[in-house]
């Protein structure tokens, strides 16, 4: 009885304490630097559990910031996933789910946020309105301003060779910061360094490739594209284990090079003396497939290698790292950034955003949410998935009606489809997924146009 009373007291005090001394971690005078390491798979980051020590710079930030070890992206390729950061809504809601809205021999219309969803306000627009100088510096291609990514940015750099790396975007960004050192800035920094279509200017040095590798691959974007296309056409490709190791080593080299590049940026930034008035958000739009499901590249599926991404938030002067294993979604990033910037946002913004701020989680509250993802990838597939907070995943392929159910606790590689053996779980997750689809305006019974909506130029012509 006494124990119970103590417990009760404890709860009451806890509630009172929380109410009276709510910690404040927002900073309305801080710079916000949002870095997208395009195509970085979560499990290839050392501080997130990768065996190889290839990411010292990322790890250093992760270990002194908030490390979200179960961050799930809303999509598995750049355009829809990145647009969600800037809109706070799911791809089906911002509608920039394909490169083109119309694509015939006669007519090609690029998808654009402002045309498809004129009522949506972007993160950069809100920050600009609240006194931030806003700059985006990117590697072009999937985050080209033409899709609407440039909305709200005072400067948006995307005029370069598609799939460029940080070596291109960083110097531009640093010059811009230098020029506006005394202003409050929001920076979106993006590089394709880890992407299949990227290669270092001076070529690979094969730093992680086993010297005994005798295979036919050299790691070039052309080879990667060929394998990707084969995988899309036939559903899978066949690689030897040596080849897989080779491609993984290439990926590691790309990651390592990006990490070094990031280090350069941070050093230069530090020199400007702005470090202790800056909030960093470092993440990736999606992962990369390395033959986990017998394909290379990304976009086609919603398995964890593609939607499980790293996410790090580092506050000014933060030294103590905090690991947060709760599942969260990239849909939560926009509300989090706004709260960290001390911006409440009007009612329209609040109703627009589908996620919730991660600040309470960072302050120690519990959070248990399901994460939803979707991909409409070229003419090949239309997939939707729910990943529950307790690690079950259900994937629905709209064009075939195929259902997949995985217990990620016992089957993290998602190879044992339980849809016919665990009917109840399948039913439960299907209801969750379809409820979400209805809530986000996805007409489940409408006809689905399986036209050619290519992601890359030169296809479907």
């Amino acid at each position, binding site marked *: 009885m*006494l124990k119970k*009373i*103590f417990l*009760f*007291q404890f709860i*009451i005090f806890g509630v009172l304490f929380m109410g009276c001394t709510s910690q404040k971690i927002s900073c309305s005078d801080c710079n916000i630097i949002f870095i997208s390491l395009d195509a970085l798979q979560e499990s290839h980051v050392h501080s997130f559990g990768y065996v190889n020590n290839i990411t010292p710079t990322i790890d250093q930030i992760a270990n002194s910031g908030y490390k979200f070890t179960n961050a799930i992206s809303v999509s598995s390729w750049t355009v829809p996933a990145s647009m969600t950061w800037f809109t706070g809504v799911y791809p089906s809601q911002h509608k920039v789910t394909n490169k083109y809205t119309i694509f015939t021999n006669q007519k090609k219309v690029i998808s654009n946020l402002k045309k498809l969803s004129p009522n949506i306000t972007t993160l950069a627009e809100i920050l600009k309105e609240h006194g931030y100088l806003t700059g985006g510096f990117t590697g072009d291609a999937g985050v080209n301003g033409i899709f609407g990514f440039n909305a709200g940015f005072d400067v948006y750099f995307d005029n370069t060779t598609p799939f460029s790396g940080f070596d291109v975007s960083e110097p531009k960004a640093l010059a811009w910061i230098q020029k506006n050192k005394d202003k409050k800035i929001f920076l979106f920094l993006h590089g394709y360094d880890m992407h299949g279509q990227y290669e270092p200017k001076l070529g690979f040095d094969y730093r992680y490739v086993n010297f005994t590798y005798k295979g036919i691959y050299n790691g070039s974007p052309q080879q990667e594209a060929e394998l990707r296309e084969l995988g899309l056409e036939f559903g899978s490709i066949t690689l030897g284990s040596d080849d897989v190791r080779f491609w993984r080593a290439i990926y590691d080299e790309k990651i390592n090079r990006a990490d070094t590049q990031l280090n350069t940026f941070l050093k230069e930034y530090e020199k400007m003396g702005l470090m202790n008035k800056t909030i960093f958000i470092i993440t990736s739009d999606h992962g990369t497939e390395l033959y986990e499901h017998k394909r290379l590249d990304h976009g086609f599926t919603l398995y964890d290698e593609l939607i499980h991404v790293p996410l790090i938030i580092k506050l000014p002067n933060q030294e103590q790292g905090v690991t947060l294993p709760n599942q969260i979604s990239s849909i939560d990033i926009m509300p989090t950034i706004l709260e960290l910037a001390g911006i409440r946002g009007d009612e329209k913004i609040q109703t627009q955003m589908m996620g919730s701020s991660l600040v309470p989680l960072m302050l120690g509250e519990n959070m248990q949410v399901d994460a939803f993802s979707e991909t409409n990838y070229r003419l090949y597939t239309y997939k939707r998935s729910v990943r529950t907070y307790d690690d079950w995943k259900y994937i629905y392929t709209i064009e075939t009606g195929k259902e997949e159910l995985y217990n990620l606790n016992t089957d993290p590689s998602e190879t044992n489809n339980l849809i016919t053996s665990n*009917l*109840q779980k399948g*039913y*439960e997750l*299907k*209801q*969750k*997924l*379809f*409820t979400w*689809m*209805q809530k986000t305006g996805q*007409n*489940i*019974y409408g006809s689905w146009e399986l036209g050619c909506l290519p992601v890359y130029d030169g296809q479907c012509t």
Partner: protein
Amino acid sequence: MNKKKRGKLRIIFLSIFCVLFFLIVLFFTQTRKITYTPQVCKDCNVILISVDTLRADHLPCYGYYRNTSPYICKFAEESVLFENAFSQSVNTLPSHMSIFTSLYPFSHGVEYPFENTLDKSILTLPQILQIYNYSTLWFGPLDDPMLSPEAGFGRGYDARISNVLSFAGVCNNTPLFEWLESQKSNKRNLFIFYHTYQVHVPYIPKVDLFDNTSRLNFSISDFITKEYDIIKERAYKNETKFLSILNLSTVDTVGFDVSTPNLSEDFFRLNYNNLTIKNREALIKAGYFPTNFEVFWRDINTSDKDMLSYVVSLYDSEINEADQCINSFFEELKKEGMYNKSIIIVTADHGEEFMEHGNIDHSQLYTEVTHVPLIIKIPNSPGYKKSGMVESIDILPTILSLVGIPHPYYSQGENILNDTARDVIFAEFSNKYLIRSNEYSLLVDDNGTTELYDLLNDPKQKINVAKDNPSIVKSLMTRLNTTLQYPRYYGISYNFSSNIDSKVREDLFKTGYW
């Protein structure tokens, strides 16, 4: 020491505070809570009883002056009785499908017999319960076009057993009790759908309980004779067509073997009980087979008030027989120790009209046809009444909540054991729509007819006040249009044979059904 003492004092002080706080919370929750929210029962059986065509206001627990249903009303005393429950349609097929899917008829799209089939993506109540390892039984007619397996009613059952004896509407629980016996050895929860046409036309009660004037002498044998007469009449009007129809029905070897037009009454009687759904379908499609409604009312003068009230007494006697039949089921459940482990729902798909609005049978959306009984018995839960408006589509989510199963994503109903009440209810039938609030009911049809009734001053819905209340019409119209925007979950059409055109289908539907 001092510290310890202070600590003790603090504990006492805080304890008092906590107790007070707790009491205050308790006080508020107690006074606000009108109903009892039951615990989830994962081990409960689910028994859904549908008394086809049972209008709510003919039960004494819904205020009827005749004691038609002593057993159901006794059962209601230990159950939650919904005083204002409304069906989503006034026809067996769409209405039952709404119960089984928690979708409005326009959303599930199963509105016409032989024509529509439920989309595969929609799971019916037994299908969902089957996923959760229930042993499921259909106990009702097996080859009824209004409850046909093809429409989707066949899905999700481990067993489908007929309760129809020689004629629909005779109590026959024996096969059900045998099945219950067979289930004793398995540890699975049971789901039973129990359907009866007992109170549906023809009203041929065993005992004429409430009126002994015997104005109408109508036996089952008379009924079959009349049915035969009508077929014969129709057949001889167009002999060629009759021949082709009879040939059509020989496709199925059981039933009529009538390759010649010499269909004798004896032959008809002999084969009557062997008529398969295919035979009836063929005959109905051709417009030869009459509906039960047509046969029964054929020689009754509906403007004869005494005769009409006599027919109502027959209907009431049928309710009494259904009541006894259902009670025998309850008694069996009690005997087997299952009664207190079962969630039992008694409801109806629609009511019945007796010239209240110029018509008989059930095809209009007035109270007498849309207001249905809904009584839910929950184990270890006290009985009470709820007056808020609820709908048939709420039955599925309520059952699922009671047994702890998530609702399907498409469910348009709610768990009505919560304190939520609807501010309007919706029903539809054959391009006619009803939106009803606590104060007004709006009936519209596709031809632009608009009726508005002031339910508080005109509960019998006699005076159309639409013209005097344009703003009320407008606001209810808005609600109606919002409702009609709900998603439609169909696309697949049951392949209806080509020899029936839309006119025939429409005619079939207009005349009710058999």
